[in-house]
């Protein structure tokens, strides 16, 4: 009965989720990785598709390489910008790939996807240092690093364990460094400036290289391959929207390295929105005009609040429907209860981001995985407090209800749940407040909400933008807390809120 309830809740959830997805089934889903250049390229694709008459949607800052590639394979995305070196050495590492562009294209097609022609620039990895530090230590090449074992290296998290990243770089150059840290790419530039790290991985089209006047170390054994930017797309796109495929070919060869660096600089250093940067480029280079909608801060705030509340409320509502019955079940059957509480506890120990990404294969991208992950995180406090609330009811109280001759279900409804209401409500409150904070991570997988400006703010090193997400999230958490305290006065029976007179 409980299992059936749980199943039907899950089915209902999935149905509503797929209904939401089906609504813009026809829209072309463009993805981009969580760094500026990728967002600009994604926006270029998005605008070209719209210009070609299609409905398109840009899932910006969608995640890392693996997340995007898998989303494309599954059909959650239709197209996203990738780099040849990444495909060869990271995504398809270990596969037998014939040399050259044709070989790589064949390999991509063998995976069931399509690869366009290079967009015109090579954004290779490089290792960079502050000019003054490099000068002082006399370091010109990556090999020179070998003699300076005390240097702290800071690499983007993806670079840390990519096939073409730090592990192979270390092996090829025999680098002995032990203090090697993983950190977010944009933050690494700041750490380099403050001398917390001494060398970092660069993307050769990064605007910061010129802006900070960094020294790019010579790749003297030619370890890093070529990272030509290309578009990867699903084959069915050619059937669904041939005009879009045709339009996208106009981007091929249209962006050289200097141009891309310039676009990156406008977005990151000059703080022009990626939408504007993309629109301006298309206007001047391809004579494709597109509209840039400037959303007001208030408008954006409202939309993010709506997205955030959707995540929190939907997941919380379903969590209550699942967790309260589980709590009741746990209170009734001690052994099963330990099992349920244990399982809910284990879920709680899974790192938030890992849980989010783990959800993608099951329920796709955007809101559904975020809601599912939030839901799973909400279970433990509610299950535990329902369990505690029920088992804390004194024996004589339970026996008084039983002695009246009430059925178990009736006792539960009329006596036990009301007596446990304060505890259950406290559990729901805990889950709600945790959810408000946790939902900010939803932006990492395209679910929007207050996490979006935080993510973008981190990438653009823009404290104002970060606060646009962090402050409303904190306010919402306080608001939720306050609302629950008010609701206690309505939901907890008055008789339980009185002090005894003797």
């Amino acid at each position: 009965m409980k299992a059936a309830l749980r199943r039907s809740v899950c089915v209902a959830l999935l149905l509503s989720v797929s209904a939401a997805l089906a609504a813009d089934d026809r829209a072309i889903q463009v993805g981009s990785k969580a760094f500026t250049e990728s967002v600009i390229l994604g926006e270029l694709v998005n605008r070209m598709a719209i210009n070609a008459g299609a409905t398109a949607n840009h899932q910006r800052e969608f995640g890392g390489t693996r997340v995007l590639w898998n989303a494309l394979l599954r059909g959650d995305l239709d197209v996203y910008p990738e780099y040849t070196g990444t495909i060869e050495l990271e995504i398809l590492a270990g596969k037998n790939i014939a040399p050259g562009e044709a070989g790589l294209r064949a390999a991509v097609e063998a995976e069931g996807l399509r690869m366009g022609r290079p967009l015109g620039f090579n954004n290779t990895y490089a290792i960079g240092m502050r000019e003054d530090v490099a000068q002082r230590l006399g370091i010109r090449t990556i090999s020179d690093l070998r003699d300076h074992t005390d240097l702290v290296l800071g690499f983007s998290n993806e670079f840390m364990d990519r096939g073409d990243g730090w592990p192979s770089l270390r092996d090829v150059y025999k680098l002995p460094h032990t203090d090697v840290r993983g950190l977010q790419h944009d933050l690494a530039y700041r750490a380099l400036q403050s001398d917390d790290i001494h060398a970092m991985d660069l993307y050769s089209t990064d605007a910061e290289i010129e802006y900070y006047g960094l020294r790019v170390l010579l790749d003297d054994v030619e370890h890093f391959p070529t990272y030509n930017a290309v578009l990867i797309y699903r084959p069915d796109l050619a059937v669904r929207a041939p005009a879009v495929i045709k339009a996208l070919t106009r981007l091929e060869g249209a962006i050289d390295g200097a141009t891309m660096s310039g676009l990156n600089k406008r977005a990151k250093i000059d703080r022009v929105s990626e939408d504007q940067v993309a629109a301006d480029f298309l206007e001047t280079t391809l004579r494709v005009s597109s509209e840039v909608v400037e959303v007001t801060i208030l408008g954006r705030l409202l939309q993010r609040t709506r997205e955030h509340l959707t995540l929190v409320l939907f997941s919380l509502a379903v969590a209550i429907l699942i967790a309260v019955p589980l709590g009741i079940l746990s209170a009734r059957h001690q052994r099963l209860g330990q099992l349920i509480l244990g399982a809910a506890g284990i879920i709680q120990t899974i790192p938030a981001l890992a849980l989010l990404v783990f959800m993608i294969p099951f329920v796709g991208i955007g809101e559904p995985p975020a809601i599912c992950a939030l839901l799973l995180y909400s279970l433990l406090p509610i299950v535990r407090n329902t369990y505690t609330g029920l088992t804390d009811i004194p024996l004589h109280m339970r026996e008084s209800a039983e002695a009246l001759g009430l059925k178990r279900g009736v006792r539960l409804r009329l006596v036990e749940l009301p007596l446990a209401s304060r505890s259950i409500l406290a559990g729901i409150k805990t889950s709600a407040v945790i959810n408000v904070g946790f939902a900010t991570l939803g932006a990492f997988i395209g679910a929007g909400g207050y996490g979006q400006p935080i993510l973008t703010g981190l990438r653009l090193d823009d404290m104002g933008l970060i606060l646009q997400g962090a402050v409303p999230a904190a306010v919402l958490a306080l608001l939720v807390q306050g609302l629950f305290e008010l609701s206690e006065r309505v939901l907890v029976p008055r008789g339980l809120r009185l002090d005894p007179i003797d």
Partner: protein
Amino acid sequence: MLKLTQVTRSFGATVAVHPTDLSVRPGATTVLIGPSGCGKSTLLRLMIYLIQPDSGSVRFEGTEFNADDVLELRHRMGYVIQDGGLFPHLCAADNVALLARHLGWDETRVSSRLQELADLTRFPVDGFSRFPAQLSGGQRQRVSLMRALMLDPDVLLLDEPLGALDPIVRSELQVELREIFRTLNKTVVMVTHDMGEAGFFGDVIVLMRDGRIVQQGTLSQLLNEPADDFVERFINAQRTALHVLDEGSAS
């Protein structure tokens, strides 16, 4: 009425009730008494099937308790415990009427029954809207008694019903309770550890020790013909209380 045949009950390694027979006399008040841990409360809880016997049978009006009939049999019994066992989230009236409403009584019937019970137990009607936490100990026991009597059950089971009250309220309520039992002519089984109270209420007194019935009979039988040394010692230890009682009834 209520009949226990060779019932036994253990909790883990502890034997709470050794094979015991007991027949409760209809219309009379039977008091179960004995030192702490003698099994008197366990016996009472066996009678309403809050705990099941390991062996033997519990019959109520000839029907043996079993899982199917237990609810219906309980509707014909009223149960009162030491601190009332009132549900703190419900006001006095809702506590009393909980079962009747669940069984589908209409509000007219409920409120006229509440009025009857309030008269019987001398409970002030304005107290009905109060929550248990807002009532005195004595009032709580009146509400608890009303709840037990709501469906006009055949038998009342009371587990130390006056045990948590201060002496003045307690002696007042003793007198009132006995009045009520006599008025209603109910079969009553009461658990107490107080010999004075046992003598005051009990038509039949059942003295227990270590999970066994040592002697059952009237007060004078226990006083004059103690079955063994233990009965004599148990009664002597509580003589003072009996003495006071004797003086009270003499004056």
